[in-house]
Structures are given as structure tokens and as C-alpha cells.
């Protein structure tokens, strides 16, 4: 086997990834410095940083950053907490545990676009079941008109509504991993903790969590990566509205490119988004390396 055999095996992947990821990426970065007119592609003019000035002086970029932070933060945290709680609940000896676990996976198994279409319907004011159920349950207790909440059309709450739907869809993903992790914890640890006088809360804190550390890191990392680049929930439920309040960063890039056909500005936004991601991953890997 020649020395260069490994490289030889890598060629197909490098070719494909170079062709459909790397080359388009660099070309798009170039486009961020151009004024691109789709009708006269050959006549794209070089405009330096003017696209960037335009993007950074508008408010969409910043509200997009805020939306992304809120959305990713709440969705990841919510999914993780729900998944952990469910994992702890379901990990015991329960009649029909297998069926329960299978049922809990369903929200993630259903193709996302279907789930979000349904959530869009549930969130419909007046006609959606969510409003109605809340109206029945909570109506008598407060003054809020529960059957008429503009879940997805009120700019100040739309993003939270989206988060709830995303948490519903993403929890099973985290749940699978956490359950698998929980099942690897040897029972002796719990027993020796009990002998040391630990109650339920203490054994959770001192036995469960530390044993799960590796899985937790993996799960949270995956959640952040997948939810950060969410497109489907935003597109299906709000299209980035209302008033751009749910237009998270990557969605904003898509919106400018393919709804407004403003390729130059979209590319600039995309490059800025890339810088944001790059900064975070550098910081993250520094933190991760520090621990080792």
C-alpha cells in the first residue's frame, strides 16, 4: 500500500465537497463585494464594502442577531431540560416503557415541515385548538382573552411561539441520547450514594449528572448546531415575520437572497454570519481544550 493511498481514498469526498460546498462558499464571499444583478450576471460590478455598510447600518441584521440568540438559547435549553426530565421519568420500571419510549420519539420522527404546518394551525387565533384549550383551562382564572392570542402574528411573542414548537420537535432527539446515557450508569453508584445518605435530589446531582457529562456535552453541541441553522420552522410558521422578529441569522441570509433577490447584500449578511459562527467556535474550542 503506497504512502499516498489514504489521500487517494479521500479524493471523491474532496471533489464533491469542493464542488458543492467550498467553491460556492468562496464564490459567495466574492459576491458579497459585488453588486449582483441576476439579469446581467456578467455585469456584476465590484463595489467594495458597500454591501456591508448597507447591511450593518440597517436594523435587520441586529434584530436578526437578537432573534437568533433568543431562539437558539430558548430552544436548546428547553429541549435539553425537557429531554432530561423525561429521560429521568421514563428510565424507571414502568409498565409499557418500551411503548412509551417509542411514542415519545414520534414528534421527531414526523417530517418537520408537517409538524410545523400543524403547529401553525394550532397557533391560529380563534380557530386553532391551542387557543381554545387554553381558554377552557385558564380562561376563568385570568383576564386574558386566551382564545384570541396572536401567537404567530404578534412581533413580541412570535419567536417564543416558534421556540415552543421547536422544543416539541427537538426534545426526542436529546431524549434518545440522554436515555442511552442514563442506562450506562452502573447501579452501584446509586446504591453507594444511598448508603452515604443521599436522597433523590442529591443522588441526581452527585451521581447522575457527573456520569452524564460526556453525553450532555455531545447532546448540547448537536442541539446548538442543528437549531442554530434552523430553516424549516421559521419558513413554515412565520416566513421570518412578523416584522422580521423571527428571522434568525441564516434565515435572514436566505430571505435577502431569495425573497428580495438581493444577492450582494445577502452574501454580505452571510459572510457576517459566518464570522459570528467562526468567533463562537473558536471560543468554544478554546474552552473545550482548556478542560483537557
Amino acid at each position, binding site marked *: 500500500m503506497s504512502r499516498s493511498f489514504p489521500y487517494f481514498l479521500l479524493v471523491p469526498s474532496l471533489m464533491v465537497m469542493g464542488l458543492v460546498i467550498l467553491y*460556492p462558499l468562496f464564490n459567495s464571499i466574492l459576491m458579497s463585494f459585488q453588486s449582483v444583478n441576476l439579469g446581467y450576471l456578467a455585469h456584476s460590478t465590484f463595489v467594495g464594502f458597500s454591501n456591508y455598510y448597507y447591511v450593518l447600518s440597517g436594523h435587520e441584521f441586529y434584530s436578526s442577531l437578537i432573534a437568533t440568540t433568543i431562539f437558539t438559547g430558548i430552544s436548546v435549553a428547553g429541549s435539553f431540560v425537557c429531554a432530561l426530565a423525561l429521560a429521568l421519568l421514563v428510565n424507571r420500571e414502568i409498565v409499557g416503557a418500551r411503548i412509551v419510549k417509542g411514542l415519545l420519539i414520534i414528534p421527531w420522527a414526523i417530517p418537520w415541515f408537517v409538524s410545523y404546518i400543524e403547529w401553525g394551525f394550532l397557533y391560529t387565533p380563534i380557530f386553532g385548538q391551542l387557543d381554545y384549550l387554553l381558554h377552557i383551562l385558564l380562561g376563568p382564572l385570568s383576564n386574558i382573552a386566551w382564545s384570541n392570542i396572536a401567537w404567530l402574528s404578534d412581533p413580541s411573542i412570535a419567536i417564543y411561539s416558534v421556540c415552543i414548537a421547536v422544543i416539541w420537535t427537538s426534545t426526542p432527539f436529546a431524549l434518545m441520547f440522554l436515555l442511552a446515557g442514563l442506562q450506562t450508569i452502573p447501579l452501584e453508584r446509586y446504591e453507594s450514594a444511598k448508603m452515604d445518605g443521599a436522597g433523590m435530589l442529591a443522588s441526581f446531582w452527585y451521581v447522575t449528572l457527573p456520569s452524564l457529562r460526556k453525553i450532555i456535552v455531545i447532546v448540547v453541541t448537536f442541539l446548538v448546531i442543528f437549531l442554530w441553522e434552523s430553516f424549516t420552522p421559521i*419558513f413554515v410558521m412565520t416566513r421570518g415575520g412578523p416584522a422580521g422578529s423571527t428571522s434568525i441569522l441564516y434565515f435572514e441570509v436566505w430571505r435577502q437572497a431569495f425573497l428580495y433577490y438581493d444577492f450582494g447584500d445577502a452574501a454580505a449578511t452571510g459572510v457576517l454570519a459566518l464570522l459570528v459562527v467562526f468567533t463562537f467556535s473558536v471560543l468554544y474550542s478554546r474552552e473545550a481544550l482548556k478542560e483537557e
Partner: protein
Amino acid sequence: MKALRKVILHAIVYVIVGLDLLPVYFMLNLSLSSNGSVLTYPPKLIALPAEFANYVQIWVDPTRPLLYWLRNSAIVAGGTAALCLIVAIPAAYTLSRFRFRGKRLYSYWLLAAQLLPFPLVLITLYMIMLQLNLLDTLVSVILADTAFVLPFSIWMMKGFFDTVPVELEEAALTDGADRLNVIVRITLRLMIPGLAVTALYAFVNTWGDILAPVTLLRSNTNMVASVGILMLQEQTKIVWNTLMASALVVSAPIVVLFVLLQKYFVKGITAGAVKG
């Protein structure tokens, strides 16, 4: 006392599962609603009498070429899965078995490719397709979705290769296996669950994807099922019940595949990750 605690635990779990599945119940409910009872106040919580005709009607509606959509989705998802498999197997094998200069760079690249703003890549992909006259074709969607799915597929398959002991291959080598082919045959046979999971991962993700198709496809007959269903939501007068019925029909194969593969999916990721 202990019995009471058990009962409470079971009750809590069942209630939570019930609540969690409420949206799914409502999906079925909606798909079986008759035309008049979809937008009513108060909303109908149980669709009775159930309109099973919805499931028949969706196949004959000319504005909704479900069969074309399903065929296109199958082509795109299958094509992406096939392409990913072909490309990822040698790459993942190399990552798993060899040490070479640039390995770290390649691995970091695989991770970085996950974080890239895909819409940014899509901008140029769209332009390329426009210039190559490949817009509104399934091939363009296959290429775009491969860009999205391939890095993770390689990474996942590397994890699966890691679970096959190198000793087996070394034994075959010392036994005088004349070509790398024989070793590959041994390893790959053990890798069949891993290959299946990776292929299904690519398939399922592409089936449900809307980003690439919504950007690159136009005509109704070239449309993929996912975006086709979404387009039904674009109309000025949305017909919710048949929309949901179509959506569920499109989802059914995926849900089944999913429930079957999820066990291996977790095993694959945790095995690769925990080990190295």
C-alpha cells in the same frame, strides 16, 4: 405507600405522553375533518363523523400531483443517499484506519461544514444552476442536499468504521489476502448496519428538507413532496383537511423508517464520539 408512588409515577408518565402527542392527535383529527368543520369556533376537538374520503380525494386532485411529488422525493432522497454513500465510504474508512498529514484539518473541516451558513452556499449554487440551465431539475436538488448532508454522513460513518476492529483486517492481511478488496469485503459486511443508518440518515433528512427544493425548484410536476405540501399552504384559501391528509401520507414512510433506525442512530453517534 410504595404502590401509591408507583401509581402516581405511571399516571404522570402517561399524562405527559398524552399531552406530548396531542399535536399528533390533532394532525389526524384535522386530516379526517369534513370541509365545514375545519374553521369553526369553538374548534372541533374530535372530528366526527370522520371524513375518510379526504384520503381518497387527495390522489385525484389535479392541482396536487401527489404521485409526482412522491416520485420526485424518492429520486432526490435516494440520489442523495446513494451519492453520499459512494463518497463517504472511502473517506470515512480512511479517517478511521489511517494516520496521515492533514487528517486533523480534514476532520475540522467536516465539523466546520456543519456550521457553515448553508444559504450562503446556496446563493452560488443557485447561480451555477441558473447558468447551467439546471434550475427546476431534481439533479440540482440532489447536489444541494448532498452538500448539506455529506459532511455529517462521513463523520457518522467514521464512527461506525471505528466499531469494526482493525485486527480483523490485519488478520486477513497476514492470512495472505491478496488484495485490499478482500479486506474491504470483510469490513463492509460487518458495516452493513452502519451503512444502512448513514444511508437512511441522508434519505430521511433529504425527504424532509425544504431549503434546497424551495430555492431551486419551480414547476408543480418537478416539485418534491415536502415543498409541494407547503405550497398547498400558500393558496389564498387553504384547504386544511386535505392538506393535512396529504402531509400525513407523505410522512408515513419516513416515520416508519425512523422508528426502525433510531436505535442504531444513537449507537453510531455515541460509539464514535465516546471512543474518540
